[in-house]
């Protein structure tokens, strides 16, 4: 057995172990076909395509489970989901701001000389926030709203700071 074929088989077996029960039959079917593919590289490409299919199928199953659970067990309605989305957006934005400040204040990368930039370092995360909000607006509206909220808060903070000093 050539190395690509061995890799193909290991990859599919690993994916089968990860996949939920609903995806196992199809995953095993794709794995069995490997024995009938003549070329080693062809087998590897077959396995790569199959792994993608299995993971997408599994993602659909997991999404179904999650949706079912949130509706039945957690009882989260659409307002709850929106609040969760906004919270996620705020958290992501805070994480990015935290990283920017860590680089600036803690001198994590002294070679870059970021400390010389001062408050202008804020401009980069602000631009990222606005771009992310525009990109996410249609599909992930609440997350985009959360990011925009943080962009507004940081922008106001900067304005107040510059005015005061």
């Amino acid at each position, binding site marked *: 057995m050539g190395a690509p074929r061995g890799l193909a088989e290991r990859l599919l077996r690993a994916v089968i172990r990860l996949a939920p029960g609903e995806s196992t*039959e199809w995953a095993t*079917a794709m794995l*069995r*076909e490997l024995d009938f*593919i003549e070329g080693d590289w062809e087998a590897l490409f*077959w396995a790569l*395509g*199959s792994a993608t*299919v299995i993971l*997408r199928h599994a993602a659909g199953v997991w999404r179904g489970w999650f949706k079912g659970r949130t509706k039945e067990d957690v009882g989260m309605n659409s307002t709850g989901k929106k609040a969760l989305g906004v919270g996620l957006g705020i958290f992501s934005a805070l994480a990015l701001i935290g990283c920017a400040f860590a680089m600036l204040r803690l001198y994590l990368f002294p070679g870059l000389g970021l400390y010389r930039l001062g408050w202008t370092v804020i401009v980069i995360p602000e631009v990222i926030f606005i771009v992310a909000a525009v990109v996410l607006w249609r599909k992930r509206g609440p997350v985009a709203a959360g990011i925009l909220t943080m962009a507004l808060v940081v922008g106001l903070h900067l304005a107040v700071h510059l005015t005061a000093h």
Partner: protein
Amino acid sequence: MKLRLSPQTVLVLDAFLEQPEGWMYGYDLSRVTGLKSGTLYPILIRMAERKLLETQWETMEAGRPPRHMYRFTPEGLRFARANMTSRARGGLDQVALGLVEG
């Protein structure tokens, strides 16, 4: 509509129509249609979920692992034949239109 008829799905339907009563294997279907596993299997899964396709594990001789096989259900066969007829009619219409325009 029971199934979205992408060009790839039509290829798979046509491959099954070549031997409507017979079982086919995934890799053989891939070779006949020229579709990669990443394209072929989502179509097979959708067809099976919509009861257009039945699946079965082939029992082979001892020591060899079983292989998954697929064939049309009666409903799947009806769907594929109806689709083929409508495509043929569409093709004829286009030919007729071409003749009129020509």
